[in-house]
Each structure stands twice: as structure tokens, then as C-alpha cells.
């Protein structure tokens, strides 16, 4: 149906399927290798990169400032107090880690489903995961107040002979997030080894040859190595899939296991995971759209990718919508006075504006427009949508954390929440830090997996002898 809207002679459309091409026509093994390797190996770093790097670095310094003051003075500089004791730190933690989920989804789940189109975007989506988890991981550590004692969360034999309490979801979180960070880094690095070998072999400078030579651990493309490598990649994908689903589930347990109205609900795990993927794909778009433009990668990251990511967002957006609907329904169906009040207060209370921002950004704008193929393939529109959904998902966590806490059981203890400048500096600072890391990645590591792209090219087909004789 949707295919009829597009011109039949469009070179970006594959006439056989009517779909957008995953890779533009006329690319060879050497041309795609050159295209991707040049970004890293060029001696001329684009000026725009330096400009962005300076800005991102400057914003990362804001984070450093906020952290320094925090370590000197304590968490009292933040807006957290009773009754809202979980403020920006937890909101940002959940938001950042959710963003990471799309990277794992693209690299692991879509690999298992043999979705060839994922190849071009998988590497930088994985990098996004790692940097997002790095930003996320900071927040619980600084939120505990005495970050230098954070190692108390681990089961280590201290002289105090105190051990963690394994019935608490907060301890589960330690294991879920640390495993997620470790496996993401391993998956990302292993996936990069053959491409690092390509860079080693293509680089002209001695320093680059040593650098990529060490990182590529002597990879030489032996087919025996490749077969073990493929098995390991598949297994890692198979392991990362239940892992990514479990991480946001465990994070939702931080809320759902508590008895607080607004948190104590069984819909949280699936709704958190879907929300994580929703915001993660939005972030992939936020990064991919400027990147493909800046580095002229339109032939590798095509409209097909943008279109497909729009579809995934549409699907996960509806799961999230179902989650919101169920929350509303359960507050009525539970017949619990406290649940009903909490929900009424969330929507119409003094901080109800945040709920309406959430509904506008997560449901009203994306779920009405992403149906249209024309809009899904309009690059400026998709960039706009990605920003809208990222904002909406941040507000979702704000609504869950703040509006469940600020009017609790006793009206005498009701309060409000107002973030301080240190809260904002920390949040904005992590955005700068994330961009800073991402820019370093784009400059020094291959951002598109060359070895996987090669497999998508027509030259990679093994032709039987008979067919060859015919040409």
C-alpha cells in the first residue's frame, strides 16, 4: 500500500521488493572499506568535529564542576528532600539506561532475527549503549551520598563482616547494571576486532598501525577464526537479548517492589522495557541523522533505516500507551482509595503539567504521525520526532518518581519538588559527557561495521560453477 506513494524510478528503491535499499547501488568491498576507514584514518579532522568537540567538552566540564561541589558539600545541594527523596538522580539514571537499550536491541535481537538492515547502524548504536550506561551508572553512585563507599554494594569480605541484603531490588540493580555494562563493552569490542584489523592494514602512519595493531590482537581473517567468531557473536547476541530485557525489568523492580501507590504495579517491567526501547531508538535517530549528513553516509545509512526505526518506535510507543492506560485503569479497578487519589493527583494535581507534557510528547505527537510513510522518511521530521520522544521519555520518569512521592499518605507531610541549579548542571553535564565520548568514538573507531556490510554486497554471494559459466 505504502509503496505506491513513491516514484518507481527512484534509485533508492529496490525494484524486486519495492522496499528502500539497505545499501545504495554500485558499492564494492573496496569502496565501502575506503568510505568507512577514511573517516578514521584521514589526517584532516573536519573543523566541525573540533567545534562540536569543544562545545561538548565544555558542557562535560559543567558536569565535573557539579560533581566536585557535590563531593565537597553533599547531596543537600540537590532538590531532593522529604517527601521526594528520589529526584533527578534516579530520573536521569532510568532515562540514560533506557536509551542504552536500543543499542543492544539493534545489535543483539535484530541479529537473531537476521535483519540485515541493522548492520549499518549496529556499531554506533552499541557505542551509544556503552556511553549511555556510563552516564547512567554515575547517578546511583553519586546519589548514595558517599560515593567513595560505593564498593559496600558488592559482596566483599570486609573487616566489618557486613554483607549485602540480597532480597532488595537495589542490590539486584548492582548486578544487572554491572553485567549489562560489561557485556555491552565485550560485545562491542569483539564486534570491532576485524574492523580494527582493517584499519591496521589500511593506515599509513606508524602510530596508527601500532594503535590499531594492538587493539586488533593480530586478527588475520582465517576462516577457522571467523567461524568461532561467528559462533561467539551469535551466542553473545543470544545472551544479550535476555540480559537487556532483564535490566530494565530489574530497574522497574526498584519501583514496583515498593508498596507505594503509583509504583506498586505488575505492568512496570514490560512497560519499562518498551519505554526503554522507545527512547533508545529516538536517541539512535538523534545521533544517526546528523552523522550520516556530516560524514556523507547516506548510501550506507539509508531511508530504509530511518523508516524501520520509525516503525519500531510506533510499535513500542503503543506498548507504552497501553502501560499508561493500564495504570489509569488499575487505579480505578483496584478500588483502593490511595491508588485513585495518587492517579487523580498525578493528572490534575499541582504537578499535573508534567503528566500532560508526557502524554503530548510520547503519545499525541508520535503515535499520530508515525503511521505515515511520507513522514517516516522525511529526515527533518524524524529528527524532530526523536527529540520529542526523548523529552517525553524523560518526563515519563519524572512523572513516575516525583508525582508518586510528593503527596503521600498524610496531608501534613505533603511537599513539592523543585530541582536546583546543581541538578540541572549534572543532567546537562551528562549530555555533554555523552556527546564528548561519542565524538571521540566517531573519530578514532570504525563507526560502521565494515565486515558486516561486506556480507550484504552482491559480490559476497557464492556462485555455483554452472551459473558462472553462463555469464
Amino acid at each position, binding site marked *: 500500500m505504502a509503496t505506491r506513494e513513491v516514484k518507481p524510478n527512484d534509485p533508492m528503491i529496490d525494484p524486486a521488493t519495492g522496499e528502500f535499499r539497505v545499501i545504495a547501488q554500485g558499492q564494492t568491498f*573496496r569502496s565501502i572499506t575506503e568510505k568507512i576507514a577514511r573517516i578514521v584514518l584521514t589526517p584532516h579532522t573536519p573543523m566541525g568535529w573540533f567545534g562540536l568537540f569543544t562545545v561538548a567538552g565544555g558542557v562535560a566540564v559543567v558536569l565535573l564542576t557539579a560533581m566536585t561541589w557535590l563531593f565537597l558539600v553533599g547531596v543537600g545541594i540537590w532538590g531532593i528532600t522529604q517527601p521526594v527523596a528520589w529526584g533527578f538522580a534516579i530520573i536521569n539514571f532510568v532515562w540514560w539506561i533506557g536509551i542504552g537499550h536500543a543499542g543492544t536491541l539493534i545489535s543483539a535481537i535484530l541479529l537473531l532475527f537476521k535483519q540485515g538492515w541493522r548492520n549499518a547502524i549496529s556499531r554506533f548504536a552499541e557505542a551509544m549503549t556503552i556511553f549511555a550506561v556510563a552516564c547512567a551508572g554515575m547517578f546511583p553512585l553519586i546519589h548514595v551520598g558517599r560515593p567513595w563507599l560505593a564498593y559496600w554494594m558488592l559482596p566483599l569480605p570486609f573487616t566489618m563482616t557486613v554483607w549485602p541484603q540480597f532480597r532488595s531490588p537495589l542490590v539486584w540493580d548492582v548486578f544487572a547494571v554491572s553485567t549489562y555494562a560489561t557485556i555491552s563493552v565485550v560485545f562491542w569490542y569483539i564486534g570491532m576486532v576485524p574492523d580494527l584489523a582493517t584499519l591496521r592494514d589500511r593506515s599509513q602512519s606508524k602510530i596508527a598501525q601500532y594503535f590499531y595493531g594492538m587493539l586488533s590482537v593480530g586478527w588475520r581473517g582465517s576462516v577457522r577464526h571467523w567461524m568461532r567468531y561467528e559462533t561467539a557473536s551469535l551466542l553473545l547476541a543470544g545472551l544479550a537479548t535476555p540480559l537487556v530485557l532483564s535490566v530494565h525489568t530489574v530497574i522497574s523492580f526498584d519501583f514496583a517492589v515498593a508498596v507505594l501507590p503509583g509504583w506498586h504495579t505488575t505492568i512496570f517491567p514490560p512497560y519499562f522495557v518498551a519505554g526503554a526501547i522507545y527512547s533508545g531508538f529516538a536517541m539512535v535517530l538523534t545521533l544517526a541523522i546528523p552523522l550520516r549528513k556530516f560524514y556523507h553516509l547516506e548510501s550506507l545509512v539509508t531511508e530504509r533505516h530511518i523508516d524501520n526505526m520509525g516503525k519500531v518506535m510506533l510499535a513500542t510507543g503503543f506498548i507504552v500507551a497501553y502501560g499508561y492506560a493500564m495504570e489509569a485503569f488499575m487505579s480505578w479497578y483496584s478500588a483502593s482509595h490511595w491508588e485513585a487519589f495518587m492517579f487523580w493527583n498525578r493528572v490534575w494535581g499541582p504537578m499535573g503539567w508534567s503528566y500532560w507534557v508526557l502524554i503530548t510528547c510520547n503519545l499525541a505527537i508520535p503515535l499520530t504521525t508515525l503511521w505515515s510513510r511520507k513522514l517516516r522518511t522525511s529526515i527533518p521530521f524524524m529528527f524532530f520526532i526523536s527529540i520529542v520522544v526523548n523529552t517525553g521519555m524523560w518526563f515519563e520518569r519524572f512523572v513516575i518518581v516525583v508525582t508518586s512521592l510528593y503527596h503521600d499518605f498524610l496531608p501534613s507531610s505533603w511537599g513539592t519538588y523543585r530541582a536546583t541549579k546543581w541538578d540541572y548542571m549534572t543532567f546537562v553535564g551528562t549530555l555533554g559527557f555523552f556527546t564528548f565520548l561519542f565524538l571521540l568514538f566517531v573519530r578514532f573507531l570504525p563507526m560502521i561495521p565494515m565486515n558486516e556490510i561486506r556480507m550484504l554486497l552482491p559480490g559476497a554471494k557464492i556462485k555455483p560453477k554452472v551459473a558462472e559459466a553462463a555469464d
Partner: protein
Amino acid sequence: MPAREGTYGLLAEFDTPSDLVRAARQARQDGWRRMECYTPYPVEEAAEAIGFHRNKVPLLTLIGGLMGGAAMFALETWISVLAYPLNIGGRPTYSWPAFIVPAYEWTILWAGLSAAFGMLALNGLPSLYHPLFNAPNFRDGATTDKFFLCLEALDPKFDLAETKAYLAQFQPNSVVEVEY
């Protein structure tokens, strides 16, 4: 450990994976065993052609995962029951359903680490030196767009002149002698 002097083998370069697979299949049929293919991306048919069908990565992953999960579950049980028993709302000290979550995460953690590092170890990596890097055309092609078949000198059938002629029948771009 083979002697580190003399000839390592003969390296034939091809332009397409199909040519490589055909040559490798024929060489295997003619009785060659010490041989290896080098490709810029995984070519399953080439591995089949040189008789490499199965590998031990899945077994290592399984063992790693089971050990990781069991270790964490045992640690949780020991801490909660013996080392530091806590009464949390009257729940039993051995509250195993709660222990599943960290044990699950550690199963994945150690299975993943075993898969990744087991793969590298089975491949004999890291090894920054390899005789093939001495071949003049290897580094330009093997990780970009060329397909190589190497017949190694350790094979009893190997003879420098004869093997060179044998490889020429597959019409490669070039046949190069690789020194240690």
C-alpha cells in the same frame, strides 16, 4: 611449535569468494590437510570446504554460564543463611526466589565472558606476529576485498615447485611464497 625458519607456505590470492571456495574444495579433495583460507568477512562455505565444521565455543559458553550462575547462587545462600543472616519482615533466611535475579545476571555475565575470551583463546589470539603478515599482498587484501588460500609447508604433500604449479591451475591473481 613448528620451526621458525624457511617457508611457511604458499599463498594464492583470489578476487571472489566463489573462486576461493572452489579451489579450497578441490585442494581438500586432492588430500591437502594443512591449509587455511583468509577472507575479509566470514565465508561459511570456505570453512566447510577445508573441513572445519564444528567448534568448541558453545561448550565453553555453557560451562562458563552454569558456573557463573551456580557461584552467585551459592554466594547468596552462604551470605544470607550463614555469614550474615538478617530478619527482613520475618522472611526465611533462605529466600531463594529473590536470589534468582543476581544468579541470572551472573549466568549471562560469565557465559558472555567465556564466549568472547574463549573464542579469542581458541583462535590463539592475541598473537601480534604471524608469518602471513610478511606476504606483500596479504595486508592490503585480506582485511579488505581479497580472498586467500594458503597451503602450508607442514603438509606432507608440500613441495615448493609442484605446489606452485598445482595452485596455478585455479587461476589465482598471484601465488606468493611466505617465509617465517
